[in-house]
Structures are given as C-alpha cells and as structure tokens.
C-alpha cells in the first residue's frame, strides 16, 4: 500500500469555470482522475472504529472501499460500495456529505475531512463506464397488463424516485419480483424533475436505473397509483403481496402573500420540472416553454432554491437573487451549492421576507415588496427565528419569482387508500425503523413520510423497508 497523504486539504476536483458554466447545463464538477482519486484515498487513515460509516444513512463501508481506491483496485472498491448503495453515482454527487459521513471523519478534526463523496462518485462512475449499456427500458403503463403470474412473491413500489428505486433494488437482490409504478413518463423522481443536469447528469440517472432493471426490477411509467389503479387493487386482484409507498413530497408550498398567482411566479417544482424534465432550456426544439425575465428572485434558502437560482442564470437571467428571511448561517442548503451559486453570480439577500407581489396590469409580476428582518430567539428547529425589523420595507423590481420554500407529501395515495393512517399535514405514518404503516403489508418511506428531505435519507428508508418487507413476506410464507 502507498504511504499516507497527510495533506490537510482535500485533493481539489476539477470544475468548469464559473463564467463558462453559468451559461451551459453541462456538469459543473468534472470528477477525479485515477491519480487524483488515489492521492485523495491515501488521506484516509482507515480508522478501526470507522465513525464515517455510522454517519451514512445506508452504511456504506467507507474505509474499506477507500483502501481499494488507494490500491488502484477500482472494481473491488465498486463492489464494496454497491453492496450497500444502489445508486452510488447519484449519492456521490448530491449527498450532503459534510453533514453525514464527512462530518465524522477523523481527518476533519484538523484540516479537511477525506473527500468521501468525491471518491464514491469516482468509483461509481468507473463502474458505469465499465458496464455495458442497453438494459431493459421501462415499460409504459396503460397497454401492458399489470400483475403477471410469477412464482415468487411480488412487491409493488409506488414511485420511481430514490426511495422507491432503492427499495426495489434491494428486494430484487433478495429474489422478489418487483414492479415500480411511476406517475411521470420517466423514472427517477426528483433526480430527473428536480435536480438539474449540471449537478446530476440525466445520463447518470438513466445508467443507474438500467442497473436496477438488469437486476430484474420492472418499471412501469405513466401509472398514477390511486388514479390509474388503486393501491388496494394492486394488493388484491393484481396479486402483489406487499407494497412500498415512496410517492415523494410533490405538493409545492406557497407563501400565501398577495400576488402569488401572477404570471411569472413559479413554484420551484414547476420551474425545475419545465427545465429539467421537459428541457425547456432547449425551447423551441423542445416544446415546453418557460418564460424568464431579466431579474429573477428565488424565495428560500435550501438546495432547491440554489438549483432554481443557478438554472435561472443558465436560461439567461441577468440578475438572480436568493431572497431568504434568515441569515447566511441559517441557510439550509449545502455549502458547496451556496459556494457554486455565488461563484456563478447569484446575489444573496439575507434577512429579507417577501410580503407582496405586484403585477404590471397585464397579469405578469413586476415587483416584490420585501420586509427586512432581524434574528430573534432560536425556534423549534434550533435556528434563530426571523422577526420583523421596524420600518425596513423596500421594493425589488423582478420579472420572475420562484417560490422554493418546500413541498408537502402528495395526498393522492392517502386520499385513495381507505384506512391508511396519515399525519394532518399529509405524511404517511410509518415506523421509522421498518417503514411499516398501520396496514399490514403496506410500507412507506422517503419524503412521502418525512416531508421534503434528502435523496440519501429517502434511500435509507427504502433500504430499511426492503429488509422489513422481506421479514414480513418470509413470516407470511
């Protein structure tokens, strides 16, 4: 084994220049070369106690895979990663590592932690490059019969986002016949409609999904469970023995301030879906339109807000503001996303709360009235609560507003599944460790249970539910 690399800093990962990338949708971070990956891997001390593993929601055996990278044995590293993570090329790109594995890294006590996320991405990309494409494409619903005879117990998964796909992959590995039902025309959930191409290329998502279909997972698009087919029919005449609900947090929240229904005011879901899923940035070659004016205000401070702001730059907005009612320290977005947004020219307006949107008389938004805020006592989330600063009212001229203040679970499944217990705000009630709901054989996880959270937490829930479904079906016989 090569000697340890005692550099206090992570090996930098090459990126597109901010001035160039803010005008294209190509991936910002370009990934490590073999040499860079091996150098970074040599920073890992291989701690026996492995605190990093406990910080990973799917418990990837981090020091083990990094040791293989340091040795240059990339296939062995990939095998270790994929044994616990069904979608590593995605996690390596979008996980908040600084709050999870990397936050517990011993190297981080003095200097920067090992770049675990970057190494995971490196290993996963190597694997995808090596794998042949051409696994089965997802079938579209509506014409194919649902529920075919199978000698193995069959499990239905609702939603082909990160949680559903992870659960499906785990169950397929255990030998179950799994069908994933997806409402949209493409599987991937938030990975395809929400997270932009420049942060997570859709080709990567397609290849990760192809890996799952090659395990035998069947994906049927264009099926809205609850509308096209009720959950109870899947569990009844369609012959599924168990179901996992992973329908995500699809319903956008608005601020409920005057003017929010003006034209040019988008929910982040709409704005990002038009761009990412429907490729409005290639309009008119692609048919879905998007109107973005010179000045865009994105309301909110999470990763979704950063994605929307950076998309706005790329589709031609001259001035892009993040309008956030708390301060910089309270921003919930990943540091890397904040940093990238700033590099690309996004301007942050902290301690600013929109109070009213004004139209131009023709139904289009023209300006945003804002209230300056200051920080008071910590609230339930532990962050200092924003309170009104007397007198601090001002107006921003805007031509587009994107509301990125969160989503709640889609109510469709709960409203069409009699007897399924849910919270008043729409979340399905499920056991944290197993995903079990109050209905036997029905499990739930991811954003459908927690409300909007992260890809990796949703994946963790999918993995736990798969194990619990296995126990349930084994006991049932």
């Amino acid at each position: 084994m090569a000697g340890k690399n005692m550099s206090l800093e992570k090996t930098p990962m090459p990126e597109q220049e901010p001035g160039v990338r803010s005008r294209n949708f190509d991936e910002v971070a370009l990934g490590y070369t073999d040499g860079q990956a091996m150098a970074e891997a040599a920073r890992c001390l291989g701690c026996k106690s492995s605190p990093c593993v406990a910080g990973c929601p799917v418990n990837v055996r981090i020091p083990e895979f990094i040791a293989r990278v340091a040795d240059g044995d990339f296939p062995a590293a990939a095998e270790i990663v994929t044994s616990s993570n069904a979608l590593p090329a995605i996690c390596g790109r979008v996980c908040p590592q600084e709050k999870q594995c990397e936050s517990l890294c011993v190297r981080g006590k003095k200097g920067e932690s090992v770049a675990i996320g970057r190494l995971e991405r490196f290993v996963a990309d190597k694997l995808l490059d090596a794998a042949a494409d051409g696994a089965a494409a997802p079938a579209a619903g509506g014409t194919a019969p649902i529920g075919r005879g199978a000698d193995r117990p069959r499990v239905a998964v609702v939603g082909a986002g990160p949680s559903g796909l992870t659960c499906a992959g785990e169950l397929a590995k255990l030998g179950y016949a799994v069908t994933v039902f997806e409402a949209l025309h493409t599987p991937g959930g938030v990975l395809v409609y929400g997270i932009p191409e420049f942060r997570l290329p859709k080709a990567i998502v397609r290849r990760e999904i192809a890996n799952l279909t090659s395990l035998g997972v069947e994906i049927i698009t264009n099926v809205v469970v609850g509308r096209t087919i009720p959950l109870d029919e899947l569990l009844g005449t369609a012959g599924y023995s168990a179901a996992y609900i992973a329908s995500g947090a699809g319903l956008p929240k608005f601020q409920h301030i005057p003017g929010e229904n003006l034209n040019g005011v988008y929910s982040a879901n709409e704005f990002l879906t038009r761009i990412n899923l429907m490729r409005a940035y290639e309009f008119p070659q692609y048919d879905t339109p998007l109107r973005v004016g010179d000045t865009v205000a994105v309301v909110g401070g999470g990763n979704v807000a950063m994605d929307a702001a950076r998309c706005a730059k790329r589709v031609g907005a001259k001035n892009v503001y993040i309008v956030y009612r708390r301060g910089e320290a309270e921003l919930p977005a990943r540091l890397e996303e904040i940093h990238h947004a700033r590099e690309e020219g996004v301007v942050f307006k902290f301690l600013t709360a929109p109070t009213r949107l004004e139209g131009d008389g023709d139904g289009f938004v023209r300006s945003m009235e804002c209230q300056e805020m200051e920080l008071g006592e910590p609230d339930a989330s532990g962050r200092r609560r924003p309170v009104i600063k007397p007198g601090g009212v001002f107006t921003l001229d805007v031509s587009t507003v994107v509301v990125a203040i969160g989503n709640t679970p889609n109510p469709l499944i709960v409203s069409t599944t009699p007897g399924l217990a849910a919270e008043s705000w729409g979340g399905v009630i499920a056991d944290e460790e197993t995903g079990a709901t109050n209905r036997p054989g029905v499990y739930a996880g991811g954003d459908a249970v927690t409300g909007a959270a992260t890809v990796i937490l949703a994946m963790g829930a999918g993995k736990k539910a798969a194990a619990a479904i296995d126990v349930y079906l084994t006991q049932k016989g």
Partner: protein
Amino acid sequence: MYKITKKRVLNSSTVMLEFDAPLIARRALPGQFVVLRVDEPGERVPFTIADSDERTGAVSVIFQIAGHSTRKLAALSEGESVLDLVGPLGRASELDGFRSAAVIGGGLGIAIAYPQARALYERGARTDVIVGFRTRELTILEEELSAVSSELTVMTDDGSNGNKGFVTTALQRKLEAGAKYDAVIAIGPLPMMRAVCELTRGYGVHTIVSMNSVMIDGTGMCGCCRVTVGGERKFACVDGPDFDGHLVDFGEAAYRSRMFLEEERISSETHVCNLTGGVR
C-alpha cells in the same frame, strides 16, 4: 406507446382521436382528464376525456388545432401512436342527486360536456343541453348530443342555423320561462363560462365549471394550474377540474391562460418554418 385506434375530423379545426388505453378506460369517469405527450420533445398537455369504453379499452379526446402540440397531434393517423398517455386524472364530476340540469357547451366545450350530459341522462335526470358555435359549418357532435339530451338547443353566433345568439341567450330564455335546474354545468372558453356564471348567479342556480388550466404533470406537483376559488388557492389538476363557478376568480384565470401566449407563437412559427419552409 399508445396507439390511435380511430381518428375523426369533426370540422376544419377539430379532431377526435381514440386511443387504446385499457387501464385508463377501466376507471375513467365524466369530468376526468388525461395528460398526453406526442413525442420525445413534446410537452405534456392535458385533455379532458371525451369518451371511454371499459369493454374495448378505448379512450378518446377531442381537441382544437390551436398551436404546435395540437398540430403535431392532429397530423397523426390511425395506427400511429403517441409516446405517453396517463390518467384518468382529476376528480370526477359530482353529478349525484341532480334531477334536472342544463349542460352548456361552448366551442370545444361541447365535446367535453358530452360525458356529463350522457351520465346525467342515463341516471334519468332531465338534461337540457345547450351548445354554441360560431357558425353552422363548425357544428359538431349534434347527433351524439341529441341522443343524450331531453332537449338539445344549438345556437350559432351568426344565426346561420336559424338560431342566432350565444349559449347564454338560450339559457336565459329557459330560466325566464321558469326552468328549474338543480345545476348548470358550463364547459368551454373562459369568457363563456364566466358569462354563464354571471347569468345563473341572478337566478341562484348552482353552477359548475370545468377549468382547463395550463398543467405539466397533472398530479399536483407543479402548481402551474392554480386557480383562486372562493378566495382559496386550488390546483385544477387535483382539486378540480370542476369548481363552483360562482366562486372562481375568472379574471385571474383569464390572465393565467395567456401565460405562454408569446412562447406558443414562437413555437408555432419555428415549427411551421421547419416543416414547410415558411409556407402555412
């Protein structure tokens, strides 16, 4: 892929397509819609289900050729397919308990109103159907509607069928003559639905309208189809598309329907140029 099993050109700008979509046909109810994508670059467009047949698995939509997407769709022939078709979406119309109703269709709304009229008629309700067209040549589905109405009134803006006036003219005549309706169901362009609502408000008749908002996913995700009803924000795709017409903010709905007018023009022009070298 979803195969087109039947195509009917109803008039110079209106086309009916029937698709083989058994999963949708099995559960489709009056008032529900599908979202359709013609091809890979295509946008997701909502269409009200005009008819469906559980036994044959057929689902049909009727549309007016208005822009690039509908032009592409109208260019397809029987035996060809569209890439994506999902549904049935939205809540079904609530028609229970109506013993007497007027179903009003303006323009393309006639096609959309047909399932409601049929459902009411088959339940034994007195079903007066009033439809309006610009001129006689544009009249569609007269035979089909006649078969499901207690009384069918066809109006033309120019009087070319001998019945001059708007649908509201005919409805007002009936209401003045003392017709008692449990509900008026109005489906069509926003100005027509608004005019019907203004008329029925004076008579205190419960009026249901069907909002055909701009949508992407059709499942509550994008919020593009938001409409203000009784001061509350609703999503047409999951809370509707039917709403109490007397509570709908039609002014807002009107400007929201024009959200992408400019882009639709660009799209149409670009593709007309690409397809025909500029000849329309």
